[in-house]
């Protein structure tokens, strides 16, 4: 099982390839959409590359749950609703929901650290 630092480095390399950004832009708290300019189709590319680079299988909608986030009861006017936050705590335990604060913009949900947490969870499950 690689260390968190090793996972972060590999995630950074993955995002550099997928998004065409510089490595020093890919900090742990960087937001994929707001800071790194990711678009929805980039999420598919990121999933492909993570699977390849880490040798893991990422089920559809697991890392980036597009169905959940397009559901109006969970996301309204670009903000995660209270019900949405509850759902995300169950469905995305690797996401740092507390950082969203009182203005839970759905775009801020996806960060580099979120991906690192997700990969760590997957690799931990695989190593058991």
């Amino acid at each position, binding site marked *: 099982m690689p260390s968190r630092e090793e996972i972060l480095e590999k995630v950074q390399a993955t995002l550099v390839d*997928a998004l065409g950004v510089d490595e020093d832009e890919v900090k742990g708290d960087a937001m994929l959409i707001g800071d790194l300019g990711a678009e929805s189709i980039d999420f*598919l*590319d990121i999933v*492909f590359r993570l699977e390849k680079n880490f040798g893991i299988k990422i089920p*559809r909608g697991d890392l980036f749950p597009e169905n959940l986030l397009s559901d109006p009861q969970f996301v309204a006017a670009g903000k995660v609703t209270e019900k949405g936050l509850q759902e995300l705590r169950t469905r995305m335990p690797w996401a740092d929901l507390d950082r969203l604060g009182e203005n839970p913009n759905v775009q801020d949900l996806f960060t580099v650290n979120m991906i690192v947490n997700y990969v760590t969870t997957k690799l931990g499950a695989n190593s058991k």
Partner: protein
Amino acid sequence: MRWIWIDRFVEFQSGRFARAIKNVSMAEEQLRDHFPCYPVMPGSLVIEGMAQTGGILAGEANHFRDLVVLAKISRVTFHNCALPGDQLVYEATLVDLRPEGSVVEARATVNGRPLAEAEIVFGHVDRTQGDAEPSRYAAFKQEMMQMLGVPQRLPQPAAAGAGMEPGGHPVHA
């Protein structure tokens, strides 16, 4: 004008690899302005040719259940220019295939000389979704494949496992 930038498939291995050709003609409209005194096949249309080769390969692998749309060119490198009279050979290898998308490694050559290489990501759009109206997308469709002669007109490749229908059944031409 038809938005088709390959002339014919010359090899098609279901779910794995496709090779297509495109003959560049001075009569083609795009060469009139690109460029007026020095006609060169636009790089964007070379990318489109690689994407059509790979998009049909990806679509066929999923039995054309979903609409296959060009989502992203992750990487592209040009080595040279294609001129009127050149025959472009497009080769596409399917490197990843999932229900929601696929990735193709593609290359274009002229007389064995490298012209371009690209990594192309396709999105697969569910035809039953409300926003999946086919006319909204430049999708790679089964009709294009039939028009371009797959699989009926193709010679059967000699390699083991080649010339397969979706699902791995041998093609009977």
